């Protein structure tokens, strides 16, 4: 097969070479764009998870505050009863 290879082939004319050069650079560009698109999708997922976790954290904080106020309430009632007596 190597015998068939044009070792010292003449340069391709510009209109023909241009297609190959454009093809090579476009392939490179497409690869980069695809990679960046995949990374953008990953970052969007991370953002969504963060929002969800922030929601959970807020909910937990509210639950804790409610639990504290419920614990404090019976104590106040006892104090009120003692003052009446």
């Amino acid at each position, binding site marked *: 097969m190597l015998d068939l290879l044009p070792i010292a082939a003449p340069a391709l004319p510009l209109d023909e*070479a241009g297609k190959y050069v454009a093809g090579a650079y476009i392939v490179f560009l497409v690869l980069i764009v695809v990679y960046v698109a995949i990374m953008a999708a990953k970052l969007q997922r991370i953002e969504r998870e963060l929002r969800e*976790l922030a929601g959970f954290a807020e909910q937990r904080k509210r639950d804790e505050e409610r639990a504290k106020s419920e614990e404090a309430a019976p104590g106040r009632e006892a104090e009120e009863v003692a003052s009446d007596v």
Partner: protein
Amino acid sequence: MYGKGLRPLSIATVAMLALSLSLVFFYAPLDADQGFIQKIFYLHVPLAITALVGFVVGGVFAIAHLRSGNRKWDAYSYVAIHMSVIFGVAVLITGGIWAKASWGHWWVWDEPTLVSFLIVFLMYATYYPFRYAIEDPERQARYASVFAITAGAFVPLNFMAVRMAESLVHPRTFATANGGLPGEMMFVFLCSLTATALLWITLVKFELTAKSASGQVKRLRRALDAPAPGAASRIAPEVS
């Protein structure tokens, strides 16, 4: 933590890529032998050099991981290899296009430079199944580091073997005879190499930042899964 400095690095990379592309098409002289098709050289060769150096860098990070036991270095090694594999895909495709235009064939199996790069690429393609076949994270990181060091040492040996072998059609880029570059071409080539290296560094940093953020989200989810004092246990569902 990895995201620090990513914005100026990205701007520098885009600026350098724009500059190098302008130089390639408006400054670099046309090659007397190949004509306009030789413009692929400024893309294909920097990509190949960056990919091969990236594989070696992955091996160096793996050494740091085995020496220190710090998983951070394993992440560096993984991302360096991952990015070099992506660059390797670009090298194989752009090389095929150039070969078709210059030699009339997409691939020449008798050419040591082409086949050796394909061997290196396929070797690193096995890194992913090898790594993810191991479930235990500690063992996975350790075995992957051993792979990265062994394969990383093979890359320069492979390069030297190819340089010593007789080339049939593929030119020797920095050979003193028949492959040397004139000053203007060398300047444009070095600009392209810098731009490609900057792109590799930026994408590695980008990937590390995303991985770090993803890890922090997982840690946060685990922390929130723990039952709060005085509250019922609530499992935050994993988002796939």
